[in-house]
């Protein structure tokens, strides 16, 4: 019997989510016993146009030729899975969507005409159908293994979209917002990281994106109560996942 196949594709990103695979250690070798990895440029195998059962996509769409490449990948794959904030919401580089990119380019590069860069950094789902989204900056090893395992069984994994607060409470951490007035994003942020930030005594900064039903406006009002300026409140939402609808809306409301 032939093994199921997998490809890892990279768009605009920091490569950190691919490390969820490369940092697996021994389980990486086990994984290659279950599936054939046909394309994973960072790890060696190269066959970008291979037909695969699962295509993992890291990074956002940010240049003119990305869209064609993405369409080809979609046509070649049964399941298309976005891994990480860039692929899922446009990533930190989506901050440019609210700026004048031409001015930025001219500021950095002496020869702007050679730069191929779209004005916006957009998530994969804006261009092709996505079967599964893994949120997180970066995603965790647990997320990727659960996803691949579930897909091998022919089902989608359970979408964990609780708030970070739920996980934080389960771990019995002292609330940094209540006790230290930290501008914690936990009440509106998707779980999955393991409540890492409050566990070490700092505020969550929303790197896993919006949770289910995030009450962003109530949180923003609370942050105002802590004395944050309007722009400081805006920047809480307009950070790693500024391209997500809920964070974008709330951030834009406060940005002056």
């Amino acid at each position, binding site marked *: 019997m032939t093994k199921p196949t997998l490809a890892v594709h*990279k768009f*605009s*990103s*920091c*490569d*950190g*989510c691919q*490390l*969820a695979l*490369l*940092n697996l*250690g*021994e389980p*990486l*070798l086990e994984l290659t016993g279950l599936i054939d*990895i046909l394309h994973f*440029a*960072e790890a*060696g*195998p*190269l*066959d*970008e*146009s291979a*037909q695969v059962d699962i295509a993992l996509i890291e990074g956002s769409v*940010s*240049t003119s*030729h990305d869209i064609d490449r993405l369409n*080809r990948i979609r046509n070649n794959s049964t399941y298309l899975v976005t891994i990480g904030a860039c692929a899922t919401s446009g*990533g*930190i*580089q989506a901050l*440019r969507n609210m*700026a004048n990119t031409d001015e*930025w*380019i001219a500021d*950095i*590069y*002496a*020869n702007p005409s*050679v*730069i*191929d*860069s779209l004005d916006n*950094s957009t998530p994969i789902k804006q261009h092709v159908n996505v079967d599964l989204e893994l949120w997180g*900056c*970066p995603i965790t090893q647990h997320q990727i293994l659960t996803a691949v395992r579930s897909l091998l069984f022919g089902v989608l994994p359970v979408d964990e979209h609780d708030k970070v607060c739920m996980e934080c409470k389960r771990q019995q951490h002292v609330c940094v917002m209540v006790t230290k007035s930290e501008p914690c994003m936990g009440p509106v942020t998707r779980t999955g*990281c393991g409540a*890492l*930030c409050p*566990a*070490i*005594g*700092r505020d969550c*900064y929303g*790197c896993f994106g919006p949770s289910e039903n995030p009450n962003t406006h109530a949180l923003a009002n609370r942050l105002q109560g802590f004395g944050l300026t309007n*722009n400081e409140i805006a*920047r809480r939402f307009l*950070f*790693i996942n500024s391209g997500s609808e809920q964070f974008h809306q709330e951030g834009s409301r406060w940005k002056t």
Partner: protein
Amino acid sequence: MPTETIKINVPVLARVEGEGALDLTIENNQITDLKLRIYEPPRYFEKFLEGRNYYDVPDTVARICGICPVAYQMSATHALESIFGVEISPWLHAMRRLFYCGEWLQSHSLHIHLLAAPDFLGFNSVIEMSAKYGDEVRRGLKLQAIGNDLVTLFGARSVHPVGVKVGGFSHAPSLEETSPLLQRVTDAKQDAVDLIHWLDSLGLPDDKQDFVSVALQHDDEYPFNEGRLVSDNGLDIPISDFENHFKEMHVEQSTALHCLLDGKPYLVGPLARINLNAAQLPTEVRQVMRGLKTQFPSNNMFHSIIARAIEIYFALVEAERLLSNYEPTDQPCMDVTIKAGTGYGCTEAPRGILWHRYDVDADGCISKAVIVPPTSQNQPRIEQDLKDSLIHFGLDQPKADLQLHAEKVIRNYDPCISCATHFLDLKLVRDGISENTSTTFSHADLSATAIIGIGSPNSGDELGWQMIDRLSEKEKFVQHKQQGLTLLKLDRPGIALGEAISPYEHVLIIDALKPEETSQPFVCIHAEQLTPAPGNLSSHATGVPESIALLASLDQLPAQLAVIGIADCKDEFIEKITSLF
């Protein structure tokens, strides 16, 4: 003397973090053009830092590179602390070194085992290599895991750690957390020594070159976070003086901002560090180095893999020292008082010096940021090295060997493409044509695949048809036809081409080249590369490129469409086309 042109185009360079590509043109046994192209699109970190609060900076710059986030966080915090006049406690100084040990261990182990060693041992990937070198791969994964866990100790995770603040760390780990790590670090020291000896015995190429090494240097320690910038050519400056000696330039039609020292390429990274700072390594590390075939300082770039292994051993020895003396503190973070000003930070990322400069206003917001990553500093050196080492290797070598050697040379620098904040995505239309045999139909469903020869029986335009005839004779294609593959002859492109293509998902078009427009006898082009620059193929009134552009505008292109232009029906070309299936 006949002119021979070899063009090598490596579309995606495997096992370079991020994705790059190399163009090489050889004419008359001389390199006439050599460019390392980088696919990482600009992400504008320096621009979107503007206007953000200083306390957002560590979490922002970590995202520049998933492989060396610690380096970005350390250069940034030191730069900002210098503006605010923060005095770092001995505890913090020590623990930031420990934190950095983790990143070197992780990054160097990843590079050696997953990216570089497969090259030297002749495997395509670590997955293949692990079948024969299972113990070595497992040893590498173990060292990498210790590195990740050292970063996690302070950062709560190894990629984009969350524990770093301007002023220090969010928390101090407990002894319950540090003790088991100390044990693992101590146990792994022998693994690192074995790793060094293993690499020393590999028989790396002998390729001495003339280059300048640049690194931080500190009176009391092997450099991580502090020191002066020195070179083996007499440079000795404070980091704040960087911009007076090093210049970043956006080279015309180039792929990246190149950074030059007094106008010349230079080397940063593990080999440069060891060349300049071996005297600062602990005695037990220097003892191991004395017993090696490979001696430092070295001007052979292939020794950088051994330099990395030595730094792995150093990181373990240093981590053992720091963990043995570890005591938790109740002040893991210094107090910070906001002040306006300009500050500089330079630390030794795994790949070499990472220089930051920030201008901060009175509210503590960033008004300007400049980030010079190691890979943009090494890029001119890589190109220079490629020119020298490929000549040394022999420009008359077969293309596949030249390509592999070039990739090995590039990998010596461990270029981290995504961490080069300035790397550009240069538009790739060179005459609309590049020799590019990366296309493959090996996974295509044959019943949905067609090879279409364009031409006519007339002389001068018969090549497309001739090739179809020749391919039809091949045993492989006889079999493929039985499985549903279609071979077609078409007398002209235009609308007819659209009709011919429409039943198929995968299409390969073969057409004659206009000899006056190209010096290359065989080209393979993906449809989307072809459309922007029509006019290179055949002399049909409505040429293949126009037809494809038309189909594209009607959204009628198949999932996979490639065009091969041939100037001849040579056996070599027949083999090339056969190998695509």
